């Protein structure tokens, strides 16, 4: 699965893009975040305040309980500020 990070989430995570092989028991975005936070301080810092984290599954806005089964791309980012 491809993971993408944008804006300050990318800066804190220390990477903008990575390929990961997830444990089979991870089924939704919540589970993915919990797993990521075990992977190092950068991820822990990036996901410290979930109130300001948004996600997209296969390039469509998702919630933390959105399923990632079969997804090829999940992205994490702050609330958007374009326009």
């Amino acid at each position, binding site marked *: 699965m491809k993971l993408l990070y*944008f804006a300050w989430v990318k800066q804190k995570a220390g990477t903008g893009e990575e390929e990961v092989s997830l444990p089979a028991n991870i089924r939704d975005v919540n589970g993915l975040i919990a797993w990521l936070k075990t992977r190092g301080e950068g991820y822990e810092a990036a996901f410290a305040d979930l109130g300001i984290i948004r996600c*997209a599954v296969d390039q469509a806005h998702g919630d933390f309980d959105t399923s990632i089964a079969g997804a090829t791309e999940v992205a994490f*980012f702050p609330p*958007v500020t*374009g*326009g």
Partner: protein
Amino acid sequence: MIRVQAEDFDIGAEVAALTAGRTDIGAVVTFSGLVRDASGNAPVTSMELEHYPGMTEKELARIETEAHERWPLQATLIVHRVGRLAPGDNIVLVVAASAHREAAFEAASFLMDYLKTRAPFWKREEGQGEARWVDARESDDQAATRWKR
């Protein structure tokens, strides 16, 4: 139509292209957003616009499709710039063309409200030697709820 680009845009040329050869358009509303030299009390000397290639285009297309479902529109256009911008530079252009002005005004306003809250762009402002990611505004979320149905 949707475009994400580093280059500037010309409002007049974009509107002319959208209306060329058509005689069924009675009203065209454009919105353009520009970089201001201050954010609250903090001076801004430059701005960097990051986005999510792939999702950006999909999300803008979804927003445009929804506008066409809600209003009788002859044409719409969304152009969003990315990369490094300076105060006074254009950031975004939205155009809505319709037979009547009410639909054109409402659709342009809707496109901007949805773009502000759904399109994956992030602004980083620089000023006084430091860079800061712009926080999302609650007033933008509130503006977008006007269109909930």
